């Protein structure tokens, strides 16, 4: 109960942030808002300061995090029965880490928060997950750890490079300025970019580093999956935007073809894997791979539309896939199976659920007037401006998306009710109860609002993105 209240309070605070965010503030003057209290001299010996701040890009990501947390807690109200206290401790620590990652404007602080998220997530998957949870947790841990330790090395090297010219600091502003005055050589940039990119690409996840995702998502408890899909995946993309690309622009531009192709492969491969899945959750997990492929494509198109679209898609994916995992969790609590073959004809059994499911599904596909469309469209348009092949290939991903999602719906909801479903079992499958309505509704509202009134969001994102382009000399088109 307490954790519910505290997460709701946090959400409330972040809404206040939204209201106070000054959209007219010229980013050239104040890149980050809300940066007080900053303790620059937290650890002066090491050059680390407790510096935080939010701009248009991170604002919504923070909001997404604080929105999904109370929802996740509500969702776990009945499904987590053992060791409830530890569960909530882990979730709250996780939230701290997540908000910290988005808000940190000091590189070492960012790294600290990035690592802080690790253990709670491992515990969440490993203790409260389903059958293969230990395997999934260890896999998740190993993948993430390898990436982040390489990033750690790159951070140290960056600091060292700056200290050679007397500009040693971990603060983002300081690093940006220092790098402008004393840029790194292309070789150095390539290696460092690779180190950072590896770590973020694992998180995103980008093919071929995605193999931890299906296991982690399927074996995690509902709250874990929601948070993983909704927030954690975005951190990889955020890391690219905030750190990897601004620090190493030349290397990033050189990497465009590589990453774009990997993104396209992610999109198509992810979608194809969805078509053959037997497991409900794994299917949605692969769909995340596919959607995040879009995000990466948009970022590396390096066009205004592409990047804004990516940020928006991050948000919309968080909302829609988060909702999908919540729905899966709801039905799983009733039926205790994730095999799609065990389902069928549920539209008759749980009609309201099936309607909600359909709406969220459409959002995920990218139906215009729902949130998914805006992001995907902007990304495709942004990509089309620079490379038609990429855009065409990516667009096929949209079609495939519709294919697997509608196929899923048909197999689960439509048709005859599964004959294996005995009547006692059927009686247990109740439709949505009050608590579930409470936490699904905000997401549904958001899905529609984001789809119909996207300028409310993009207006705040755009100035930061424009600034991003001009500040780092990325060919803004």
């Amino acid at each position: 109960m307490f954790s519910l209240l505290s997460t709701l309070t946090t959400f409330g605070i972040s809404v206040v942030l939204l209201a106070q965010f000054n959209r007219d503030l010229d980013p050239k003057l104040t890149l980050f808002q809300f940066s007080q209290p900053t303790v620059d001299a937290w650890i002066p010996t090491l050059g680390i300061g407790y510096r935080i701040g939010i701009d248009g890009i991170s604002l919504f990501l923070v909001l997404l995090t604080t929105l999904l947390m109370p929802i996740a807690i509500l969702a776990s109200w009945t499904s987590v029965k053992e060791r409830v206290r530890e569960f909530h401790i882990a979730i709250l620590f996780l939230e701290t880490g997540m908000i910290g990652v988005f808000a940190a404007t000091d590189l070492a602080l960012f790294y600290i928060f990035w690592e802080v998220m690790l253990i709670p997530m491992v515990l969440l998957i490993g203790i409260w997950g389903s059958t293969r949870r230990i395997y999934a947790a260890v896999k998740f841990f190993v993948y993430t750890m390898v990436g982040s330790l390489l990033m750690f090395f790159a951070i140290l090297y960056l600091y060292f490079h700056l200290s050679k010219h007397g500009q040693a600091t971990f603060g983002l502003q300081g690093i940006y300025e220092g790098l402008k005055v004393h840029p790194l050589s292309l070789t150095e940039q390539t290696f460092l970019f690779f180190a950072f990119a590896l770590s973020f690409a694992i998180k995103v996840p980008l093919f071929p580093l995605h193999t931890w995702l299906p296991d982690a998502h399927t074996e995690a408890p509902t709250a874990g999956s929601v948070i993983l899909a909704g927030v954690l995946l975005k951190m990889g993309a955020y890391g690219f935007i905030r750190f990897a690309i601004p620090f190493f622009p030349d290397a990033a531009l050189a990497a465009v073809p590589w990453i774009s192709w990997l993104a396209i492969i992610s999109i198509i491969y992810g979608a194809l894997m969805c078509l053959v899945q037997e497991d409900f959750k794994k299917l949605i997990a692969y769909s995340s791979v596919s959607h995040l492929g879009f995000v990466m494509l948009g970022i590396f198109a390096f066009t205004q539309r592409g990047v804004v679209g990516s940020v928006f898609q991050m948000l919309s994916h968080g909302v829609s896939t988060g909702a999908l995992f919540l729905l899966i969790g709801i039905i799983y609590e009733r039926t205790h199976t994730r095999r799609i073959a065990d389902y069928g004809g549920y539209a008759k059994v749980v009609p309201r659920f099936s309607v909600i499911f359909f709406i969220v599904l459409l959002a995920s596909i990218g139906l215009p007037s729902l949130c998914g469309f805006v992001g995907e469209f902007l990304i495709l348009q942004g990509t089309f401006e620079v490379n038609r092949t990429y855009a065409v290939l990516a667009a096929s991903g949209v079609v495939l998306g519709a294919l697997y999602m509608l196929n899923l719906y048909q197999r689960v909801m439509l048709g005859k009710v599964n004959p294996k479903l005995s009547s006692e079992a059927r009686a247990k499958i109740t439709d949505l109860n009050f608590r579930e309505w409470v936490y699904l509704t905000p997401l549904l509202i958001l899905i529609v609002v984001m789809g119909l009134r996207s300028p409310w969001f993009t207006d705040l994102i755009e100035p930061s993105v424009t600034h991003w382009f001009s500040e780092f000399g990325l060919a803004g088109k």
Partner: protein
Amino acid sequence: MDKFNPFPLEDVLKILPVIALFVTGTVVLIIDLFLRSWNSPGPSSTAFKSNKWILSALSILGTGFACLFAFQGFSSGEASSTAFSGAIRFDLFSNTTTCIILLGTMLTVVTTVGYLRRNDMEHGEFYALLFYAAGAMVLLAESNNLIMVFLSLETFSLAVYVLTAYTRDTQRSVEGALKYFVLGGVSSGFLLLGLVFLFGATGSIRLDVIGEAIAAGQDIDLSLFLAGLGLSLVGFGFKIGAFPFHSWIPDAYEGAPTLVTGFMSVTVKAAAVAALTRFALVLTNVENIPEAQAYLTETIWWLAVGTMIFGNLVALVQSSVKRMLAYSAISHTGYILIGLVAALESNSPARGAPIVFYLLPYTLMTFGAFAILSGLGRESTEDETFDSFRGMSKSNPFLAFVMLLFMVSLAGIPPTAGFWGKFYLFQEAVKAGHWPLALIGILTSIISMYYYLRLVIVMYMQPSGDESRWSGAFHCSWGAGLVAAVAAAGIVAIGLLPGRLLEISVDSIKSVLEIASP
């Protein structure tokens, strides 16, 4: 003519912590004799055992006094000074390391409550040995004189050898102790010869005098000097457990009673690292003897790499938590050696500070882990396997969480103290240009995550058997629990606010460097 006073009062006052430790050891030993005669029917009577708490109490009191004296030295803030004709040097560095050694001793002594009784080891001799060892270690940290280095090293080594063999009924204990003793004897021989060569090359036995002479550009016999450095490095390398001088560690650590292992792994390492650091920093001077610096740097570089890789790789395959912790101690020595390499190569006025900084988190986390291990179960191989920790999070949630913290800190994950230790070490290494070393350090850290995480997984995610092995928090001796809690709190505190400790490390190392480059 002035009569030479071998015990001038100011000097005696300066070594009060050492005196307190020795006196406590002797007092406890003597009191134990009386305890035995009070309750003269054989050792199995309960009345006999129940008076022994006096020993623990006295020990804690004695260590407390020692700490008090040591901290007093800290806050008085006087400049560095020497005592006993230059045998001992008091600077911030020796003060800091003394405090760390005393911390290790205090933790050990508190953990003895309950532990000794359960394992039938409760004799005054145990405490006496402990205190003699601790006192000698403090002297080693303060040594300024080649003979003093050797004497203090040998004194505590002998005490520790006996402590290792304390549970003399078990074969592994005796085996471990014997290995330690024989190999230790050999390495002490190397050390002695090395120190003698250093004397021969430089003409003085006092480190500060040697340091000043080198800095002033005096002629020294180079080949003898380098030989001396190399041989002493063997001796020190043995004590800190660097590859390839590490082979005694797994057996000695496993054979010794777990509490003794904890004590050894923490205090011996701190003292030996302190002495080695002082040696390395004082005796190498780039302008005047570039060969010495080049030689030491290269050698220690290889030692560091070998230690890290070996320690981490072998720890992966251990099925005993105790042995895993022993190998983890070896790998942490490797990280410290990275710091030493960085210190030798760097020009910064605070070079070597990460080494000092690392000692405190290392003490807390390693001893904490050993304390928990010692507090549960009995001294037997079955109680030390990974499997015996299964399901501990349900039966002993507090201890499991504390162990989680130690594992996380050992692995170097923020926001714990272990993270800052590694961060600082690797940062200095990169700053000194040794980024391959930092990279190896990071890669081996990745490997280490696996075995640290393994314990976490076993504790939290694997179901225990029908009866949880150690059900209930009361099964852990309360001394161990208290120590574990304090250590964990310390780790988190340093993890969140490392600033002050960092400053202290920087100032400490500067006080050592005063002699090296005045």
